[in-house]
């Protein structure tokens, strides 16, 4: 049930503050250029109450000749990035925003170049952005450590600037968006069904979740529901994605402290799970498996057996690996109390996914707003209260076993259903009403992925806004690193294991 509240641009900040005060959390915020329809821009803040299962859309129509609105960030800190991004890409100024630095662009704003405005041609050249780094004025005993954007390992680019006092991090600033590919702009004008190909490539390792969020947004937009068999297959796909991610993350945390036994076995198990993905779906990252309206391919009895036997083999292995990791003295010493994220900070920053649950907050989209066939399953949501690296590791280990159980249940349901015909796998896509929009939410291995899709008058994509879990969680990494040893930062970073590409889009 979505409540829509339309307010004046000068009041939207206050209205958002009121919802935040009532216990709603900001799920996403989207700016759209609707000048063709109404001669104005629109900003939409989506607030949800996870307990009462309520969703509220606060909307302000912003006249094209005065593109500004009152910022919600002073009252809703989680709105910080969204509002800066809307200013960078659409040129709508959030009045009263405390730190209106460029987010997507580094260094300087380009003036009248706003790529997400409809009159901006995607092929147009942008002027070069000059990045000026002034030496920071620091008190005695403090120094700065700049890291990246190019890193020594094969990882994505991001610039981190640590303010240090001895070995201790006093402040950290992360400049991301080096992998901004303009996916949202590119999707505009594509047929709704094809936009999925863009959406699922937002992220390398959360393809299924992004595809699901997009497909669900479109399904909500045209008001269809995927067939039941497709729902069960979607569950299997989403959980297979969680398995290989969580196993890989557990191994990566070990690599962050040079614990090679854990790192190598984590890498091996992840590889075996990805080979299973390849055998079952034809893609190691499970791409191309989800379709708008259902799934692109079935999951025959032979493939179901393949999944089952692989899980029977790998689950005891992972269990043994978890025991080795959790009983290692040095490993436990390094992980405990490191990179602590308090539940209060997590709530303030709008953190999602395992990172939130490892700070003791029980929230999981699969249980709270079920999609696919999750509504028919009982979802256990383990939580760990400590909020440190150890808790995030244990969280992933616990969720691994939960996912295995869900896959087994879903496979069993598919076993007992009659063999599906092609029509049982994917519902036909009716034409969309002009400027109708839908929101799709799914729980990726990193947390909630939210896609906002609006159709245009030809039934194609008018606006796509991808809010990945990484986008929501990056501010938490910089917050959790403060007061830790700088040598622990790689470990803290890996315990969140956020993606740069789906944050930057």
């Amino acid at each position, binding site marked *: 049930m979505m409540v829509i509240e339309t307010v004046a641009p000068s009041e939207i900040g206050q209205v958002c503050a009121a919802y935040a005060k009532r216990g709603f959390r900001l799920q996403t915020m989207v700016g759209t250029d609707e000048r063709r329809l109404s001669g104005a821009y629109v900003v939409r803040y989506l607030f949800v109450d996870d307990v009462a299962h309520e969703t509220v859309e606060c909307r302000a129509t912003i006249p094209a000749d005065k593109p500004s609105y009152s910022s919600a960030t002073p009252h809703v800190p989680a709105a910080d990035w969204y509002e800066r991004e809307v200013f960078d890409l659409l040129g709508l100024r959030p009045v009263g925003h405390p730190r209106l630095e460029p987010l997507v662009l580094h260094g300087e704003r380009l003036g009248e170049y706003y790529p997400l405005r409809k009159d901006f041609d995607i092929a147009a050249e942008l002027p070069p952005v000059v990045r000026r780094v002034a030496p920071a004025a620091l008190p005695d005993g403090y*120094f*700065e*450590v*700049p*890291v990246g954007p190019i*890193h*020594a*390992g094969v990882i994505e680019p991001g610039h981190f600037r640590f303010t*240090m006092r001895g*070995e201790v991090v006093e402040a950290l600033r992360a400049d991301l968006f080096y992998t901004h590919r303009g996916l949202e702009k590119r999707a505009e004008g594509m047929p709704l069904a094809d936009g999925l190909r863009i959406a699922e490539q937002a992220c390398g390792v959360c393809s299924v979740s992004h595809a699901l969020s997009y497909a669900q947004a479109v399904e909500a937009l045209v008001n269809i529901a995927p067939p039941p068999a497709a729902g069960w297959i979607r569950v299997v796909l989403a959980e297979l994605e969680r398995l290989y991610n969580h196993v890989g993350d557990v191994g990566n945390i*070990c690599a*962050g*402290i*040079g*614990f*090679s*036994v854990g790192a*190598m*076995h984590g890498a*091996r198990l992840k590889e075996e799970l990805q080979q299973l993905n390849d055998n079952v779906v034809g893609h190691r990252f499970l791409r191309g498996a989800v379709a708008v309206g259902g799934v692109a391919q079935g999951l025959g009895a032979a493939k179901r057996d393949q999944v089952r036997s692989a899980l029977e083999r790998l689950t005891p292995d992972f269990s043994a690996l978890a025991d080795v990791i959790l009983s*290692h003295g*040095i*490993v436990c*010493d*390094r992980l405990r109390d490191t990179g602590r994220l308090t539940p209060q900070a997590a709530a303030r920053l709008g953190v999602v996914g395992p990172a939130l649950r490892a700070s003791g907050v029980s929230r999981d989209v699969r249980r709270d707003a079920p999609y696919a066939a999750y509504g028919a399953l009982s979802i256990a949501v383990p939580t760990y209260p400590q909020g440190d690296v150890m808790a995030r590791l244990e969280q992933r280990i616990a969720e691994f076993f939960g996912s295995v159980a869900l896959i087994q249940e879903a496979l069993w349901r598919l076993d007992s259903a009659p063999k599906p015909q092609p029509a049982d796998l994917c519902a036909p896509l009716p034409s969309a009403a002009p400027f109708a929009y839908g929101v799709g939410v799914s729980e990726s291995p990193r947390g909630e992925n939210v896609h906002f899709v609006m159709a245009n008058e030809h039934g194609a994509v008018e606006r796509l806004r991808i809010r990945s879990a990484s986008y929501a969680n990056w501010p938490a990494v910089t917050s959790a690193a403060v007061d830790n*040893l*700088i*040598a*622990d*930062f*790689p470990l803290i970073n890996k315990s969140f294991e956020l993606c740069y590409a789906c944050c930057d889009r």
Partner: protein
Amino acid sequence: MIELQILSLLILAPLVHGWIKRCKAYLQGRTGPSVLQPYRDLRKLWRKETVWSSSATAISRIGPQLAAGLVVSAAAMLPVADRSGGWLAGSSVFAFLSTLALVRFATVLVGLDSGSAFAGMAAGRDLLFSLLIEPTVFLALLAVSLPGAAFTFTGMIALQQATGASHLAMTVLVLCTLVIVAVTETGRLPVDNPDTHLELTMVHEGMLLELTGRQLAAVSWSAQVRQLLWFTLIADVCLPFDVGHNPGALALGFGLLLWAAKCFLLATLVAAVETGAAKLRIFAVARLLSFALTLAVVAVLADALF
């Protein structure tokens, strides 16, 4: 024949490094690079162009060569398979450890000179560890030389060969101490991770991040020699069998083979320790090193009391 022994040590150092890498790979279920890879890496670096950090001064240019020269001098002080005289500085422990300290000094200067924040942090950590480890080394070696009062390696070897069996407890304690010292000094887990790409966590590698070409080759090679020197020191002090006095050609050859076997054995042990360990928190390294210091103190006491 001392030249032959020094030369064998200098030439064999990269092989020992490659051996550790290979053992670690095997223990981790990987194939790993060939044991000859360190030689290939050195050859590659030697042929490469040198790029300088914009803040580099003459220190960056001469520091690496200085470090390489100093490890050669240190190698000339440590007996390999001959405990007779003729070693540089009379194989004095003070001279040897001071030379290694100078190598560290040169490396730290090179790191600081690059102006990189990583190198500066790494240099700070390296100096912290050296501060904690140096008294331990002296104490451990003092325990060995206390009964005979000869603070030279040749003297210690002779003493250990003559009376080592009756000082077994002390020898074992010194061995444990020196293994911890060697792990720290060679930048290995659980103190430093030689295989990491995470600059923020580096100690030894961090100081070399801005070096390229021949300078990097020189520092890498001197680190490999330094590693083999520590293994040799442990072999000399704790396992001194068959280090002959003025050996003939055949005995010397046999002695060299046995020395190499002892060093590869220690290298294998280090690889096993590294595989089972994770990296300690930087400030928890002090705990490990004070444990080593305690072992050394007990070794001295074991000497004095029994």
